[in-house]
Each structure stands twice: as structure tokens, then as C-alpha cells.
């Protein structure tokens, strides 16, 4: 853009003398325009980062000028995102630098009606004092003769948007303090995934990566709004479409995903097991399963013991159900031929789970390592004819899931259902593969785990797992929610899916190992993983003589999930609470319950960007508005600590494909904003200083903890890379380890999370590698680092036949090279690299050596994909259609209405509605489902304060069909009040054809769509949809059912004040709701 010279700089002369006589181009260009330079080019530095919103993990370039971030845009080098960003990722600049962020600590004294400012140092000191005091007052040394070593007085929630390093310190410090109620968004989001995929395949995460979707011949998106919740990930579905793939979207509402699908199938919310079970039935009846794959790679041929009874025999129950405790004894589900171990230890694996009450979920400990099997060789029938073999059990179990039944139950017309079946079978087998993509539309149910299990069974039958373009894509939702499950900040897990010990059984380390480990596969090395973790936590204090400080771990006595914690708060036992980037007053089920719980606390610490609803409920929450609570009577002391953004700290996020991606600090946080790494580290330092010299035995775990991370700069920020190095693990010389196979059980290695071992291999931060996608193959193996061992498509051994040859050239991924005597291909083999396909394990082999050459599911006890899960899930070995907890319909398949093992907590604040044929269910006649819009993010903390996003979706609205609008007198853009037994909310009305009335069991049912992002705070305000939902949980993982509710609609705005409660009570009265309603088996 050269400047003109001399007289020609006078515009008119220049115009007439030069080539631009009409003066519309070069002559009209001003000097300013001629010297324009984009601010990215004049920035001081560009810092590599990762988007903090969803779990696609789009790479970002952060441009800094004069120590301020001036631009954030996509990094084209990423093999996952290719430089693109969705509207939220594009708004990251405004999120992190806009005026909505707070930078000052606020303090609310007990009974005060307003905030006061407080300096950070004083706040930290006060919080440390609160922790010490509450812990001392609520310490539990023993229960009977069993050690507990814990406090139930403190809980923590949050972590899915935090770095792995932050989650690691949260778990480490709080565990050493004896806190067991440590939870995060993963509980309420994808905990079902861990148990379902873990028990089916051996690892509880997405089986494939986003880029692999481009190779699918058919993609079924169900229980997911892929294009809206993961827009940049959706580009890979579009790639598949461009190559001719068929895309099918099954969902109660027609969303932006449906708009791009080839086929949209409307379905009644809560009936996906019937739908998928129908497809299973079709596949079996039409003999369209991939027989060679099923025989070689699944447990189809295994014979189950003679005492097993299926739901077909017991009208909806499996054998072994105890109606008193509402739990199953799974002994009758076991394989035939496995020895019963001696009675003393035989069923003891199950006892803690019985003692702890219904559904003390052990399923999540299969996040990396499937359930144990008793020793011995199971009986098998390779002809698949034995009536007690898994295959025949499966056939019989789904025999009534006919197309007619699917139409009855799901409201999906028979022809449309068969179209989906045909699409899947025509696109599976040797030459073609199909993929499933799902999200919380499947996980958030009282049968959430079983939903995903149904897809797992189907994909195993079709031979799609471990194949190019196949698999099951679990679309997780938060930037590092996979990490906050791996590390984890979850009550029942230690890093790497090691289970937290229970008071009853796990007395000593050897008891713990005996109860948990398996003989075959990599989980056999469990002791090495556990000892190395204990060395990472307690360093020099941990030795062979004291069981490596195994006793320092607090013990569980049941479920201590976030929902149990709320009841602990209500009952005054849990007195202190940390909220670390999570907003349960909007995001958890039964938000009223959450707020009433918090109102019983002694103290609450909220760390976030803005004053979210969970920080201000005491001042202006719905219960203040209704008069049920009065601010001056609420004793909860509240601290609000402003949090640093991802641009202001370094750390790693783990995305939905198990990939760890590092983001670097671009600028220092301003004011009193600090990272959660800083907060946890200094909180720990302060507490240790205050308790130094203590002789109390309970303080030893805290004082012996290794807590010496280097700190940098004027803010004394701990080094996230050092934390990563500890997570990775090191040997006795301090050398970073390269793989979990180097871990030892003799105390010579330390490792904070065995599945992450290798992320700091050779002292190089593998998660920070950013070799451009354009320089690698489509998997981009040198971009960042995935667990396990940088494999991108799991179980890829199954992409080759038992002899090691690809099933087809077209779909080859990994295969055996007989010349090089190793497995080769596009991906790192998910297998011992030099184990030949014909390897047979010698008698008595243990560990990895016990896995044979055709065992692709290397984390499973028998190396096979499990169609039938004999162990590890508490509500059945096979998925079964049950109606949601609250449903206008009776279960058409069985007498058993809902999941018999589901977890309920009836309480005056958590009343259930009558369902099905019970009188009163007609008071709540409409099916409601909650979902997301692309413009907002979860509970709104990161979008409702961001103007560029709030102007795109400014208000809470609900979507109804024109028929429903006519039926209830609703007007487009008018108001409607939505009522359940818990509460009532108001929303603007969006009348749209995209909501379809369905014909179910002889009558028409209307569905109501509820985007759930809103709360009363921020720039975009509205009622929270989760006010309506009850706490009704899946028993394996304690996840709430918010995807299928029953509601009533009334035109107009909702009443205010006491009148609101009266409205809710009146509906309850008409429906006959009591504390006993809905709690029957």
C-alpha cells in the first residue's frame, strides 16, 4: 500500500492525473487506509492456547500487545479444529477481557445483606482458618472398628473447566485433608459414559477421535445436538457427508443438527433403549451382525451360569434382585465355569457396595480397566447355539423390541425405524463402517449407563468398534471434563480410575489390590499404579513398612456424590463448600434443593469470573423473591474469589478425545484474580503452616504431603509444568518416565496419574507439541498427546481379523506386518506392538502376557468386548427399556415401570410425580426435555455475561409445537409457565414445527423443549429449567435425569412471591403428590 508522492497527494489532482479518473478506487484511498495494519501483525507476541469452552478443544492463537490480550482466533495448525472456532470460541476475547469480569475479592458476613470488599491475603487466611476449624469439628476417626480418617464437613464442586494440574492439586490437597466429597461437572454430565464404555470395552472414554468420523459411511447422532454443542467438531461429520456418508439424527426436537442430517427421526424423550434395542433385535433377527467379528472379539459365545434369569422371565427384572435394599446380587449373572473363590472373599467385592446403600457406583472405576472376573476358564459355545450363551440370551432379551413395539413406545413410525436399521446394516461389516455420536441426551437418565450400553452392544454386533470410521464418539462438554474424570475431582476415584478405598473391605493395601485387580491385562499391574500414586502424594513418608501411606487415604462408606452432599448440607453435616467454576444453582438438578442446601452451610467459597447465581442466591435468589428465605436470617458466610482466565495461566486441558493440550500463559491476571492452581497451592501452604508441629494423627497426611512446587513471579504462581511432571511420574533419579509400563510397586517410581504417564516423556511437554496438521497424517499424532500412549482410535486391533489382516483394504487402520513382526498402520497400535496375532497365553500367565493375539480389548479381564456385562454394573447385565422416573406413560414392555435400582431421595424439597397409569400423572401430561443452544454454554457463567453472545440468544424460551400451542392457548413470543412438582418457571414461547407431536401407545403426546442456560443473573436473565427437575439418579454413577421430565403448561407469566409456591402446591394437590409418590419399585 504505497503512499502517493508530491502534488498527486491532493486528491482531486491525483484523481484527474492518475489512472482512477472516476475517483472510486486508488484516488479515493486515504493515507489511513493505505497504511492499515491488522493488530495481529503488530502484536508483541502470539501465545498458543486452547479454547476454554467445550471439549472439542479448538486451538487458539492469543495475541498480546503491551501486556494486554488484543485478539484471539483459531490456530490453523490443529488437526482437530483446523483453525476454526464456534461463536463461543470466537467470543473468547470478550469473555477474558470484557467488563463483566470481576477482579476483587468479595466477602459476605453471616446474616449480612450485602457484600464487602476484602483483600486477597486476608481472605485466604480466613478460608484456611474455616477449613481447619470445620475439619476439626467434623472429623471422623473410625466407624466401629473400621478406620475412616475423614471429614464429611467439607465438600468441593467444580473442575471441568479447570486445568488437569488444578484438578490434581484440588484432589491431592483435599484428600490429604480427609475430604471425600470432591466432585465436578463430570458427575452430572458424562459419568454414565465412564461406567458404560468402561464395562463394555475396558476404557470409559470415547472410543475414537473426531477426525475419524470423516471415514464413516453412516453416522447416527442420537442423544446429542452435535452441530450446536460441538460445532467445530461437527466439521468432521460434514467431511463424511461430503464423501457420501448418510447422517441420521434421532432427537426429540429438530435442532440445527437435524437441519444438516439426511434423516431426522423424532423420538419420545426417554425411550432410546427401546429404539436401539429394536435395532439390535433387527440385526439379530435378520442375521446382519458381523459374525466373524462377534465370534472372535466379543463375549457372545460365553455361557452364563444356570441361575441367570432375564427380564423376559421376571417381567422386567433380572435374577438376584432384593426389593428391600433395591439392589441386585450379580452372582447369578456370572459366566459358567469360573470358580467361585473361597466364601470368605467370594462376594466381598459386593459388600461395600451393599453396605453403602443403593448404588454406590463402582462402575466408574472402569474408566481404565474393565471389571474383574473370577478366576478360571469360562465355558464357551462357538456355534452360538447354547440357549445360555450370551448370544442367545441377547436374542431372547430383545425379542419383543419389534418395529411395532418401537412405534408404540418411542412414537417412531415403523417405516422410519426400519429405514434407520437398514442404513446401519448396509453400512457395517467388512467394507463399510458406521459411527455413533452421543452426549448428555443419553447420559442424563436414571438408566443413563444402560443407554450407552445399548449402543455398545449394537456396535459390537455390527463389528464397528476399533474400526476406521466406526466406534462410539462420546461428546463430552467442558474443556477438560475428560481430565477432571481422569485426574479426577470425583469422590469415588483416584487418578487413573483407581477406586477410592471403602471403609469396610479395603483395610490394607493388599486387601484393596486383591479386591480390585484382575489377572489378565494391564490392570493386573494395579499395585504398581497405586504405589506410584502414593509415592507422588506422600513422597519420602511413604514406604513399604507403612503400606505407602495407604492409611492416609480417607475412606468411603457409600455414595458421596454431589447429590448426596446436598442432603448432607440440608441436614447440617456438611458445613463448608468450595465451588470452583461450577454453578449448581443453575446447572444441577433441582436447583431449589441446591440453594436450600447452601443456606445451611457455615461457609461457602465461590471462585468464578462473575457473580454467578451460586454466589448470590442469599441476596436475590428465587427463594428471597418468594419469601421462603430472608437474607438477614441466612447464616452462610460467603467468599467470592475472582478467577483467572485460561489466558492468564498455563496448564493442560484434556478434550473429548482423551487428548491433553497445553495452553500457555499470555498475560498475568489483573487485580486479585488468581488461577485455581495458585488458590489450591497457597491454601495448602497456609493450612500446613498453621498446623505445622501438630501432633494430631489426622494432620499427618497433610503435613507429610509433598507440597513443594516451585513458584514464579510477583504473584508467586506455582509452576503448572512441575505439577504435570509429577502427574507424569519420575524414577529414583528424578527422570521423567515414558510409559506406565515403567511403573513399579516397590516404591522406586512415583506417578500422579498412571494413564497420563508419558505426557512428559524425555522431559518434553508432549501436550505442548504443536506440529502442524498439514505436516502429518490425518490423525496428527505429533499434535499434543492422547492417553493411552498417544493412541487415537482405541481397540484398533479389532480393525484387523484374528489373523492380523485388515477386514478390508478400504477400512484398514492397523494390521500385522509379518516381515517387521509388529503391528503397523496409521495409528499407534492399541496392543503390545510385537505380539503376533497367533500368540496364545501359556498356562498360568499373568498380566499383559495373559492377553492373546486376538484380544483387542486389552483392558478387559478377558480381552473381549462385552455384549453382556456380568460384573461392574448394578442395574443389569443387559440394557432394558424402563420409563423415566417421571413419565406420562406406562412401560409397554414390562410390568417393571422404571429402573428398579434407580436412586431416589424423597424429601419435601424433592417430591416426585406419579407416572404412567397412576392417578395424578395426567396433571403433568407433557414430556419435557432440556438441551443446549450453540450460543450459550452450560449453566451460563461463561456466556450470559458476554454481550456478543447474549445478543444472539437473549432470553429463555421454550419450544412447543403449533398443536400444543393451540391446546394450551399459547402465543408465539408470548409467555408460558411450566410446572412440575418441584417448582414452576416462566419462558417466552417459541411455536415451531420443529417440535413434533408423537403418537405413543394409542394417544398423542406433546413434547416441550427447554434450553437450560438461564438464571436470574448476568446480562441475559431468565428462569432456570433445572428448577423443574428432581434428583433421581442412575444407580451406577449418580447422574440425574433431566432429559425426560413430565410437566404442565399454563399460558402467561408465573406468579411472584408466595403465589408461586401456591401454584406449585395446587398442582401437587391435584396430582396427589406426597413424599411416597414415585418411590415405589
Amino acid at each position, binding site marked *: *500500500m504505497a503512499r502517493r508522492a508530491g502534488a498527486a497527494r491532493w*486528491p482531486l489532482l491525483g484523481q484527474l492525473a492518475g*489512472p*482512477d479518473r472516476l*475517483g*472510486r*478506487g*486508488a*484516488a*479515493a*484511498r*486515504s493515507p*489511513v*487506509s493505505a497504511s*492499515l*495494519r491488522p493488530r*495481529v*501483525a503488530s502484536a508483541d507476541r502470539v501465545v498458543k492456547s486452547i479454547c476454554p469452552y467445550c471439549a472439542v478443544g479448538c486451538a487458539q492463537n492469543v495475541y498480546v500487545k503491551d501486556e494486554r490480550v488484543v*485478539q484471539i*482466533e483459531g490456530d490453523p495448525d490443529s488437526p482437530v479444529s483446523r*483453525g*476454526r*472456532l*464456534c*461463536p463461543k*470460541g*470466537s*467470543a473468547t*476475547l*470478550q469473555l477474558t477481557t470484557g467488563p463483566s469480569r470481576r477482579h476483587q475479592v468479595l466477602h459476605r458476613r453471616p446474616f449480612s445483606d450485602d457484600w464487602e470488599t476484602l483483600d486477597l491475603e486476608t481472605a485466604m487466611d480466613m478460608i484456611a482458618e474455616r477449613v481447619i476449624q470445620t475439619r476439626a469439628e467434623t472429623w471422623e476417626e473410625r466407624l466401629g472398628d473400621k478406620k475412616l480418617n475423614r471429614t464429611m464437613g467439607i465438600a468441593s464442586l467444580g473442575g471441568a473447566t479447570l486445568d488437569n494440574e488444578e484438578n490434581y492439586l484440588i484432589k491431592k490437597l483435599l484428600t490429604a485433608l480427609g475430604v471425600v466429597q470432591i466432585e465436578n461437572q463430570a458427575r452430572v454430565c458424562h459419568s454414565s459414559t465412564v461406567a458404560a464404555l468402561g464395562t463394555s470395552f475396558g476404557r470409559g472414554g470415547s472410543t475414537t477421535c473426531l477426525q475419524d468420523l470423516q471415514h464413516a459411511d453412516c453416522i447416527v447422532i442420537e442423544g446429542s445436538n452435535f*452441530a*450446536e454443542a460441538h*460445532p467445530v467438531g461437527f*466439521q468432521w461429520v*460434514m467431511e463424511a457427508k461430503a464423501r457420501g456418508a448418510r447422517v441420521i439424527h434421532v432427537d426429540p426436537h*429438530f435442532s*440445527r443438527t*437435524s*437441519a*444438516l442430517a439426511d434423516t*431426522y427421526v423424532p423420538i419420545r424423550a426417554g425411550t432410546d433403549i427401546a429404539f436401539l434395542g429394536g435395532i439390535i433385535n433387527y440385526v439379530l433377527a435378520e442375521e446382519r451382525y458381523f459374525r466373524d467379528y462377534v465370534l472372535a472379539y466379543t463375549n457372545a459365545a460365553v455361557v452364563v451360569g444356570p441361575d441367570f434369569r432375564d427380564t423376559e422371565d421376571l417381567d422386567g427384572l433380572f435374577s438376584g434382585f432384593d426389593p428391600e435394599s433395591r439392589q441386585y446380587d450379580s452372582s447369578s449373572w456370572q459366566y459358567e465355569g469360573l470358580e467361585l473363590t473361597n466364601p470368605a472373599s467370594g462376594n466381598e467385592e459386593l459388600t461395600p457396595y451393599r453396605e453403602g446403600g443403593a448404588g454406590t457406583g463402582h462402575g466408574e472405576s472402569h474408566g481404565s480397566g474393565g471389571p474383574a472376573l473370577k478366576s478360571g476358564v469360562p465355558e464357551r459355545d462357538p456355534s452360538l447355539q447354547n440357549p445360555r450363551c450370551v448370544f442367545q440370551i441377547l436374542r431372547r432379551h430383545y425379542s419383543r423390541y419389534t418395529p411395532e413395539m418401537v412405534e408404540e413406545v418411542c412414537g417412531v413410525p415403523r417405516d422410519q425405524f426400519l429405514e434407520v436399521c437398514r442404513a446401519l446394516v448396509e453400512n457395517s461389516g467388512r467394507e463399510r463402517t458406521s459411527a455413533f455420536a452421543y452426549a448428555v441426551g443419553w447420559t442424563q437418565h436414571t438408566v443413563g449407563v444402560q443407554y450407552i450400553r445399548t449402543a455398545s452392544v449394537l456396535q459390537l454386533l455390527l463389528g464397528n468398534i476399533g474400526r476406521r470410521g466406526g466406534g462410539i464418539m462420546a461428546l463430552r462438554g467442558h474443556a477438560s471434563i475428560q481430565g477432571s474424570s481422569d485426574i479426577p475431582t470425583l469422590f469415588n476415584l483416584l487418578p487413573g480410575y483407581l477406586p477410592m478405598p471403602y471403609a469396610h473391605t479395603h483395610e490394607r493395601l493388599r486387601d484393596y489390590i486383591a479386591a480390585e485387580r484382575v489377572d489378565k491385562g494391564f490392570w493386573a499391574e494395579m499395585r504398581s499404579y497405586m504405589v506410584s500414586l502414593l509415592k507422588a502424594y506422600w513422597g519420602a513418608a511413604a514406604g513399604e513398612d507403612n503400606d505407602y501411606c495407604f492409611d492416609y487415604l480417607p475412606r468411603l462408606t457409600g455414595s458421596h456424590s454431589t447429590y448426596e452432599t446436598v442432603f448432607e448440607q440440608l441436614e447440617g453435616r456438611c458445613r463448608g463448600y468450595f465451588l470452583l467454576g461450577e454453578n449448581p444453582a443453575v446447572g444441577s438438578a433441582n436447583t431449589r434443593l441446591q440453594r436450600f442446601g447452601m443456606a445451611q452451610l457455615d461457609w461457602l467459597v465461590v471462585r468464578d469470573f462473575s457473580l454467578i447465581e451460586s454466589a448470590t442466591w442469599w441476596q436475590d435468589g428465587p427463594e428471597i423473591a418468594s419469601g421462603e428465605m430472608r437474607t438477614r436470617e441466612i447464616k452462610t458466610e460467603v467468599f467470592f474469589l475472582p478467577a483467572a482466565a485460561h489466558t492468564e495461566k498455563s496448564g493442560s486441558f484434556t478434550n473429548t478425545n482423551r487428548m491433553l493440550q497445553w495452553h500457555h500463559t499470555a498475560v498475568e491476571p489483573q487485580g486479585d484474580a488468581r488461577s485455581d492452581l495458585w488458590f489450591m497451592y497457597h491454601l495448602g501452604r497456609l493450612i500446613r503452616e498453621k498446623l505445622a508441629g501438630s501432633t494430631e494423627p489426622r494432620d499427618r497426611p497433610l503435613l507429610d504431603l509433598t507440597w513443594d512446587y516451585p513458584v514464579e513471579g510477583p504473584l508467586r504462581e506455582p509452576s503448572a509444568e512441575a505439577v504435570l511432571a509429577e502427574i507424569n511420574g519420575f524414577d529414583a533419579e528424578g527422570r521423567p518416565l515414558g510409559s506406565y509400563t515403567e511403573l513399579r510397586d516397590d516404591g522406586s517410581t512415583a506417578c500422579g496419574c498412571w494413564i497420563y504417564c508419558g505426557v512428559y516423556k524425555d522431559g518434553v511437554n508432549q501436550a505442548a507439541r504443536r506440529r502442524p496438521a498439514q505436516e502429518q497424517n490425518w490423525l496428527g499424532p505429533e499434535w499434543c498427546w492422547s492417553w493411552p500412549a498417544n493412541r487415537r482410535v482405541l481397540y484398533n486391533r479389532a480393525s484387523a481379523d484374528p489373523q492380523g489382516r485388515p477386514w478390508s483394504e478400504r477400512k484398514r487402520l492397523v494390521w500385522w506386518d509379518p516381515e517387521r513382526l509388529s503391528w503397523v498402520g496409521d495409528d499407534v497400535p492399541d496392543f503390545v506392538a510385537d505380539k503376533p496375532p497367533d500368540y496364545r497365553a501359556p498356562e498360568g500367565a499373568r498380566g499383559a502376557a495373559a492377553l492373546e493375539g486376538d484380544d483387542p480389548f486389552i483392558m478387559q479381564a478377558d480381552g473381549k468386548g462385552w455384549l453382556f456385562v456380568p460384573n461392574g454394573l448394578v442395574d443389569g447385565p443387559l440394557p432394558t427399556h424402563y420409563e423415566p422416573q417421571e413419565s406420562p406413560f406406562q412401560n409397554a414392555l414390562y410390568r417393571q415401570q422404571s429402573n428398579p435400582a434407580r436412586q431416589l431421595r424423597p424429601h419435601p424439597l424433592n417430591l416426585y410425580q406419579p407416572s404412567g397409569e397412576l392417578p395424578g400423572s395426567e396433571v403433568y401430561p407433557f414430556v419435557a426435555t432440556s438441551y443446549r443452544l*450453540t*450460543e450459550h454454554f452450560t449453566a451460563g457463567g461463561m456466556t450470559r455475561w458476554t454481550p*456478543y*453472545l*447474549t*445478543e*444472539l*440468544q*437473549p432470553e429463555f424460551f421454550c419450544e412447543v*409445537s*403449533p398443536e400444543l400451542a393451540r391446546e394450551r392457548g399459547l402465543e*408465539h*413470543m408470548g409467555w408460558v409457565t411450566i410446572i412440575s412438582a418441584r417448582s414452576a418457571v416462566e419462558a417466552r414461547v*417459541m411455536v*415451531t*414445527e*420443529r417440535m*413434533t407431536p408423537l403418537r405413543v401407545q394409542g394417544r398423542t403426546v406433546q413434547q416441550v423443549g427447554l434450553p437450560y442456560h438461564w438464571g436470574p443473573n448476568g*446480562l441475559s436473565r431468565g428462569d432456570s429449567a433445572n428448577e423443574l427437575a428432581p434428583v433421581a439418579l442412575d444407580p451406577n454413577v449418580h447422574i440425574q435425569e433431566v432429559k425426560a421430565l413430565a410437566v404442565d403448561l399454563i399460558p402467561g407469566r408465573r406468579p411472584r412471591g408466595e403465589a408461586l409456591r401456591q401454584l406449585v402446591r395446587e398442582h401437587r394437590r391435584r396430582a396427589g403428590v406426597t413424599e411416597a409418590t414415585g418411590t415405589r419399585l
Partner: protein
Amino acid sequence: MSLAERLGELLSGPEPAVAADAGYQDPPPRMGFFTDTSLCIGCKACEVACKEWNAIPQDGQRLTGMSYDNSEALGADTWRHVAFIEQRRRDGRLGPELALTPAPSPFPVGPGVRIRADGGDGVLPDGGGELRWLMASDVCKHCTHAACLDVCPTGALFRTEFGTVVVQEDICNGCGYCVPACPYGVIDQRHDDGRVFKCTLCYDRLGVGMEPACAKACPTDSIQFGELDQLRQRADRRLAQLQGQGLSEARLYGHRPDDGVGGDGAFFLLLDEPQVYGLPPDPVVTTRDLPSMWRHVGAAALTLLAGIGAAHLGSRR
């Protein structure tokens, strides 16, 4: 080419060398947008990325009821606008209107009727058709013959070396002549400012070889940035592909150099008629008629003179 023809070419019809005609020596190839709306997922990343890059203020926060479109239209504070049309197709025609109570809107809000499984021919048992949700990201067209540019009295609007049309904020005096001139209703004045603002095709980014913010962000590559000639070829191939798949209503919009504005620097692939998307079916640059207007003025002037002359002659008797 005669002077008259040359002048004509500068005002309407095909103009292959737009940048050279605007006085640039050895200009780079003409750059532009091809927006393939068949790939749009309606996410509005384009709207946000544009606002972030150009520091555009928020444009009002109101729920419009126009499906998921709360941005309503292009304007001074919305330079990328995603339209949403819910419709039911049957044999390529719009289905019956549904009596909604709409918010005031310049666009036809699409109707639709119940979804049911059809017999494969798109027609449902009750005569209805499959539901369709059209989504499209609209933008300034950077016309070959840009009316806004032609009528601008101050030279604030100018043609860049890339063939794009840009408003220079340091020149614009807020007279507003360009606002009614634009056949698409794109350019508009900012309320508390007075000057006009519109898409610049990220002129500053082009200057260092970077693509516009919206094109970079677009998750599905609905917005494609590149050399206009290459984009036109790509669009032709894409259209043929879609029509081959049975999407007979798919069409290109604004791609033809002989249309009323000489073809657009930002053109589109639509899945229905332009009016469905709120786009004018036959936009014409104001100055197309300029030569004819001046000829008529000239003829009128001569007629007037002749009349005066005749009256004068007549009055002299």
C-alpha cells in the same frame, strides 16, 4: 471499445478488471466470498468473529421470534447476519402458512407443518412435506458495480486493490446517501455516530495475507474466502453436485457478471429462491441507468430548448 462503451462498462454489466479500472497498477487477483449455505449450521460464529475483529458494538438484545435469528438484518452494527427459515417443502413450493403471531420483520418467516414419515417422495400422508430449516450467513455483496460507492459524494467509499468495497471511517461525513442506494439494504448509519459502517472483507487482514475473521472461524466452511474466479468455479461444481443429488432448487446467487450489479464479490449458493432468504431477486445498481438517465435528461433539455425556441418564435409574431 468506444468511450461510450467503456463508460458503460464502468457503470453496469460485466467488468472483469474491477481493480485495474479503479486505478490500481498491477493489482492482485480479485478476492471475495462464496457462502455455500447448504453447509451452514447456523452457529453465528461468523457474526461473533466479525464483531470481535472489528470491535463492533452490541446491536441490541431482543428476542425476535424470527426462528433463531435475533440479529434481524445487516446494518451498521451487524456485518454478518445469519438468517433462519423454517419451511416445509413439497415439490419445491412453500407449504401453507401457519398463523403465528410474528414479531415485525422484513423477512418472510417460514411456515411448516407436521413432520411425518413420507413414502420417500417428500409428500406426507396428510399432503404435507418434510421439514427443512434453511440457514444462511448474509454479508455485504461487494458488488462489481456498487451503488453505495457510486453515489458517495465524499470518496469515503472506495474500491480496494482486491476489488472489495470499503468505507473509510476517517472520511465518511454521515450524509447517508449510500443507505438508500444499496439494492440489498446492507449499508447503514450507526446511531450514536452518524457514519456508515459495513463489512470491509477485513481489508486490514487481507493486507498481510490473512483471511477475513468470519471465514476463518466458520466451523463447516460454509463461508469460503479466496480468489473470486476460483470460487466461481468451485461454486459451479458444488451446484452440479447438489443438483445431481436431487436438490433441484439449489442455485447460485450473485455470481453472474451480467446481472444487475455486474456480479457480486460475495456470492451465494442458496437452496431456494432469494426472496425466501430475504434477498432481492434482481438487484440493480442505481447507476446502471445513469447513461440512459442522462440521455433522457439531454433529450428533455433539447425538447425544452426547442419548446422555448418555438414559443419564442411563436411569440414574435
